[in-house]
């Protein structure tokens, strides 16, 4: 059994994970393990989470996958962002910025809007 805060925390991260994956793929094509490593470096995730997510993004047409040979070992499955995925990424980034700004305004008792105008 898990506590509410535990669950909330996890849910919170799940929402952000989609954003992280799309941002990474917008920079370059990646294979699953690479993304897990990159994301784990910054936030804690359970490694198995990323594959169901990638599968969903693929079904929704936000990413595609292809196999590419690697120097050390068998071919790897690379993921590539689509135009639709890029649109979605822009939307999620905007939502995230708005959210993060709202929270930090609240935390530090400021009043900054999205254009960076401050009325204090």
């Amino acid at each position, binding site marked *: 059994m*898990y506590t509410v805060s535990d669950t909330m925390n996890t849910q919170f991260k*799940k929402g952000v994970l989609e954003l992280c994956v799309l941002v990474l793929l917008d920079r370059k094509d990646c*294979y*699953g*393990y690479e993304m897990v490593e990159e994301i784990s470096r910054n936030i804690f995730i359970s490694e198995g*989470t990323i*594959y169901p997510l990638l*599968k969903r993004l693929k079904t929704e047409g936000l990413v595609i996958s292809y196999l590419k040979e690697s120097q050390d*070992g068998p071919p790897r499955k690379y993921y590539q962002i689509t135009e639709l995925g890029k649109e979605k990424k822009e939307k999620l980034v905007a939502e995230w910025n708005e959210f993060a700004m709202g929270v930090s305004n609240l935390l530090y008792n400021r009043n900054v809007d999205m254009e960076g105008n401050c009325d204090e």
Partner: protein
Amino acid sequence: MNKDDYLKELTRLLRKLPKEERDDVVSDYHEHFIIGIEKGRSEEEIAKALGNPKTVAKQINAEYMVRKAEDKQSAGSMFEAILAAAGLGIFNLIFVAVPTLIVVALILTAFAVGGAMIMGGILITISYMFQPLIPLINLNLPLGGILGIFGGIFIGVSLTILGVGLVAATAYITKWLYGLAIRYLKYNIRLIEGRKGSKKSQGVS
């Protein structure tokens, strides 16, 4: 749990998926193990970091079921999708099971009321139509006289028409709700996407 155990367990848990899709998912995890081993991690360590195969499989199954319900548009596949989504965790159970029960109860009630109105309307109409023809059987109808008969028939027919209308409207709403339910399930799955592993296994990263 080592690599082979993990992948075997995952394959077993994903048996409801079409073979091609299942192989695709399992190959992702297989690749994850291979690269992890190349980087010098032990199989057990990787398995632990990936999270319980049950949790992984539940998530993938739920997404598949919802997709199937969307394509197939049948009560059976919707039922499977709801079950799979509700089984994801305590949050999903509450947010899926409770609305489902309420909505299903409302739909069934509306159909039952509609059906009763149709049946009742037909009975009333028949009673009023045949009462003057068979005076021997006294049905004790509340409305008497020639006007009463027409009044009774009118009430009976109206009730039937209203009942048919209610059933038709409910059927229409049910269809609309189906689409809504798909969207809700997708949202619900996404929100709680793969709560992997327990606090204990989170120590290893």
